[in-house]
């Protein structure tokens, strides 16, 4: 679906809430718009274009360029149409001889200090200054050459865009975008009058400033002052295709702007309902991995991981994999093989992989990477509210009075939603942060958390119980809500439980590491501050009590009546682009699409009829079960689509040993990832730019992924799964992913109304979408909970067994950073390495000092699982006794240290709590040395022409 390269710009935003209709006359035409609309926007909606430069509909009106002047009967002078609201009966003229003269004079002044190099300018053909010169009929510039900015130097320090101040008209759109849209305030107008200049931070180059490279300033710039380097290099795009970002769970809508099949730039779509025209450095700029030379585009096989790869045809690779899987089942039983779906792939692709497992493999040994991130969300929210999903849409935050963030770092991991959140916090919402680290939102320009509960890692449940204790014992329960919406018995049990003295803040304060009075104040604010919304991430789920924490969060929201309307809710911030979707599609071993257990006879019969196969009524293996079973000699074959457990799963050496024990590991991926080094079959994957499908983001929003280029290996991922299924004797006669979605809709009650035609019509749809909600469901649990009455669950605090000791006195916790993404397979193959070329260990100054460690030192981090070596960053972001690292670079071996502890209910790994010791060292760890050797050997096994060089130095050297 190709769309125009030009998006309409109505000049100013629509009024915040649709006001009463106002009718005015513009150039003799009656125009009716909502109260609060600007004259400029009213004219644009009527098809009348008023010249403008400083105005754009993504930013508040500024009124500085004086180009949008109009005449209004009964008013003196020439008001700026962008800052003048409409009024009933107003009579406006947008064109007159006088206006034309004024505008020409304004343009003449602009052009007098602008390089007249239009023919060679990168914005040629898409320049608002050029357009306005034409619109006002500028024919000459009468000013003699004089002082000007034409010799100003270009700042090309940012890897993705350049700043050419000689072309700047000081309209402040970039400064305002950084302020209003992104909320970073990295830009300012420095100087006064003629000396006014856009300045990143304090006269710093862009790359060294506070700029987070979200691209909002580039998008807002009306000239070539801020321009993507890809456009400077390639020229203006010729067409655009609307698609969905393949990075985090925000699921931003983008326009892939193209020349032929080549992406020139990715621009966030203004109509995108998740992102409203905003983006982050990953989605906006880090797409170059799709055409990176490391891509492997020819299928390969080998009998042993100690042998070189052999390039083969698709047919040969598929038949080899199918033959091996059948052999293993014949020799070791039906349950000896399984598969992993990916939260990086589309709904249609994950649906097909689980269908392949349940039909062609004949078992339920299918799992997904949500196992290691948000599986506790599915368990906890299903148990309490009745649906394994977040309750709100992102826009809901704009109606929140209190925002409670626990175990999430939105400005790094969900940056576009983080910016939306910043807007609301700057508008007055109060903020509570519960996090062992000082995340950016604790204190950032114009925002300061009312309470930062800097808890000790592993004490989430204690903290939530303490908050609930205050709610219950201080009479802050919303009794009417609970009586109407929740189970009487489970509430009574829970109320008695949390009211016990052992759950009082004073009792738990020392365990949590937060003063009791702070806990009490935070609880009071959450319960009485108006609409209160909880946002949480992997800092909640990736614990031995992950599921308990999710249930404690739901309890707290129910008890205070903070569910079922805008501005409130329980909001899991999903890590990857399609975590929600991969779970929805039946990727877990115990449930079919739509979260229905495999043991339900009616559901199973429905699928058996549709799929023409008999289904196993018992749950299959989870990922950790598969690995354990492999080491026990009971599990021998694994098909992994877009997954890299060697890097992403805990206790790396355990994962490596388990994969080595398998006889047939089939990896379908873009690159020779860490897991592929243990594979016997490599099936080339397709990037999100090369296939059709859908992703479902953290707010249950299903959005289209649209193919903009042909698959580089000849097949989209869904076609590969179809071929494998058919080689295994299970026909999957689909000709397009839309047919797969049609099947999903037929079989999944929450998807009944979803189709590609409907998605094209509505842009995106939030499930449930069915006869009772034909347009989808932005806010869930409105009148009643999905399970009927809300169920309170008891949430006793059980300390993790991973505890500090004299030998390992520090607690390691892990997380993400803005510029890199998860295992980094994509972002490490982009210029994002500029900001994060290596994973580092954050350590508090007191812990560093006692170990003789200073910034940039190499330090060994040792746990009971293993040891790795990282460079130290000494910072007060972490508290004494806590160290922190990211896991974006394989050589860092962050998961060499993490343990096999996991959530009691779901086996989600406890990445967030590992007891470690840190010591200054001079050389890499033994694991890193072995990793380097193994990686070099595996790369040497690749056929000529494929990836033989390190992606980055940090890939192979510590």
């Amino acid at each position, binding site marked *: 679906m190709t769309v125009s390269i030009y998006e309409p710009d109505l000049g100013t935003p629509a009024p915040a809430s649709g006001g009463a209709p106002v009718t005015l006359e513009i150039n003799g035409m009656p125009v009716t718009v909502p109260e609060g609309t600007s004259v400029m926007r009213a004219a644009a909606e009527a098809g009348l274009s008023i010249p403008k430069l400083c105005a754009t509909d993504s930013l508040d009106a500024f009124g500085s360029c004086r180009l949008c002047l109009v005449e209004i009967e009964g008013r003196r002078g020439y008001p700026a149409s962008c800052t003048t609201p409409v009024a009933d009966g107003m009579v406006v003229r947008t064109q007159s001889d006088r206006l034309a003269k004024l505008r020409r004079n304004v343009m003449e002044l602009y052009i007098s200090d602008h390089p007249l190099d239009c023919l060679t300018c990168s914005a040629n053909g898409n320049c608002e200054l050029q357009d306005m010169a034409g619109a006002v009929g500028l024919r000459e510039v009468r000013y003699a050459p004089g002082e000007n900015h034409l010799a100003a130097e270009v700042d090309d320090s940012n890897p993705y865009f350049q700043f050419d101040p000689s072309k700047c008209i000081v309209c402040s759109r970039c400064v305002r975008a950084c302020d209003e849209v992104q909320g970073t305030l990295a830009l300012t107008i420095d100087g006064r009058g003629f000396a006014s200049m856009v300045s990143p931070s304090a006269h710093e180059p862009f790359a060294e400033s506070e700029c987070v490279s979200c691209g909002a300033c580039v998008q807002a710039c009306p000239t070539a002052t801020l321009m993507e380097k890809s456009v400077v290099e390639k020229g203006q795009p010729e067409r655009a295709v609307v698609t969905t970002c393949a990075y985090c769970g925000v699921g931003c809508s983008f326009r892939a702007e193209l020349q032929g099949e080549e992406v020139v730039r990715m621009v966030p779509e203004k109509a995108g309902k998740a992102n409203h025209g905003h983006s982050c450095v990953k989605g906006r700029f880090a797409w170059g991995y799709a055409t990176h030379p490391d891509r492997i585009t020819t299928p390969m096989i080998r009998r042993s991981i100690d042998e070189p790869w052999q390039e083969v045809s698709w047919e040969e690779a598929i038949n080899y994999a199918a033959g091996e899987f059948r052999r293993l089942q014949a020799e070791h039983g039906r*349950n000896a093989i399984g598969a992993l779906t990916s939260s990086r792939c589309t709904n249609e692709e994950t649906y097909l992989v689980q269908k392949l497992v349940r039909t062609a493999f004949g078992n*339920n*040994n299918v799992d997904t990477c949500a196992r290691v991130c948000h599986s506790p969300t599915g368990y906890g929210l299903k148990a309490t509210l009745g649906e394994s999903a977040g309750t709100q849409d992102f826009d809901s935050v704009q109606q929140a009075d209190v925002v409670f963030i626990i175990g999430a770092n939105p400005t790094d991991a969900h940056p576009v939603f983080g910016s939306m959140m910043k807007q609301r916090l700057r508008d007055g919402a109060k903020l509570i942060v519960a996090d062992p680290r000082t995340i950016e939102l604790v204190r950032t320009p114009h925002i300061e958390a009312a309470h930062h509960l800097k808890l000790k890692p592993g004490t989430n449940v204690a903290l939530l119980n303490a908050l609930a204790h205050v709610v219950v014992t201080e009479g802050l329960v919303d009794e009417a809500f609970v009586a109407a919406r929740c189970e009487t018995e489970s509430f009574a*049990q829970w109320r008695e*439980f949390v009211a016990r003295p052992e759950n009082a803040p004073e009792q738990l304060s020392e365990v949590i590491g937060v003063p009791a009075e702070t806990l009490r104040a935070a609880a009071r604010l959450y319960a009485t501050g108006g609409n209160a919304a909880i946002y949480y991430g992997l800092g909640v789920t990736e614990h*031995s009590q992950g*599921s*308990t924490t999710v249930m404690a969060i739901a309890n707290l929201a129910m008890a205070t009546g903070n569910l079922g309307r805008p501005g409130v809710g329980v909001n899991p911030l999903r890590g990857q682009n399609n975590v929600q979707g991969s779970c929805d599609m039946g990727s877990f*071993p*115990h449930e079919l699409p739509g979260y229905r*257990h495999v*043991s339900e006879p009616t559901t199973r019969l429905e699928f058996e009829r549709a799929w023409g196969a008999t289904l196993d009524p*018992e*749950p*299959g*293996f*989870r990922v950790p*079960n598969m690995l*354990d*079973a492999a080491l*026990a000699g*009971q599990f021998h074959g694994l098909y992994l689509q877009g997954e890299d457990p060697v890097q992403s799963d805990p206790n790396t050496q355990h994962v490596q040993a388990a994969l080595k024990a398998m006889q047939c590991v089939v990896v379908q991926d873009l690159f020779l990832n860490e897991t592929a080094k243990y594979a016997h079959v490599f099936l080339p994957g397709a990037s999100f730019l090369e296939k059709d499908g859908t992703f479902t983001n953290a707010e249950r929003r299903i959005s289209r992924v649209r193919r903009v280029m042909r698959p580089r290996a000849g097949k989209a991922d869904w076609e590969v799964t179809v071929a494998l299924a058919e080689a295994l004797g299970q026909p999957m006669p689909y000709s397009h992913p839309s047919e797969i979605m049609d099947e999903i809709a037929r079989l999944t009650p929450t998807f009944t109304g979803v189709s590609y035609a409907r998605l094209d019509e509505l842009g995106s749809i939030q499930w449930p979408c069915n006869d009772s909600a034909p347009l989808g469901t932005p806010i869930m649990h409105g009148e009643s909970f999905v399970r009927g009455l809300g169920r309170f669950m*008891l*949430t*006793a605090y*059980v300390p993790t067994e991973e505890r500090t000791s004299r030998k390992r006195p520090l607690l390691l916790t892990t997380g993400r950073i803005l510029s890199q993404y998860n295992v980094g397979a994509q972002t490490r193959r982009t210029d994002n390495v500029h900001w994060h070329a290596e994973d580092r260990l954050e350590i508090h100054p007191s812990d560093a000092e006692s170990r003789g460690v200073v910034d940039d030192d190499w330090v060994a981090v040792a746990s009971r699982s293993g040891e790795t070596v990282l460079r130290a960053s000494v910072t007060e972001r972490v508290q004494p006794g806590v160290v922190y690292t990211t896991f974006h670079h394989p050589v860092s071996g962050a998961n060499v240290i993490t343990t096999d502890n996991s959530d*009691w*209910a*779901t*086996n989600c790994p406890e990445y967030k709590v590992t007891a470690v010791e840190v010591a200054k060292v001079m050389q890499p760890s033994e694991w890193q040395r072995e990793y380097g050797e193994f990686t070099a050997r595996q790369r040497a096994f690749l056929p000529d022409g494929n990836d033989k060089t390190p992606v980055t130095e940090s890939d192979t050297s510590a």
Partner: protein
Amino acid sequence: MTPDKLVYMANQIGSYFTTDPQPEHARQQIAEHMKKFWAPSMRATLIEALDRDADVEAQLDDLVRQALIEHRTLLLGSAANA
């Protein structure tokens, strides 16, 4: 899978349901959790180990051990009497 790991996982499940004020209900919930989320071979391996290995019996928390014994049929299905 090794019984040690299964014992650990089972005790972890038990630790959640310990808070249930009705032990009978807690035992039922433990068994239903395993039935719902554990592959049959995992349940069979644990119960077999409980049957033949005194160490396993000792390592299992009381509530969990009782749940496995009381709900053997639920957990093993037709193989319970084999």
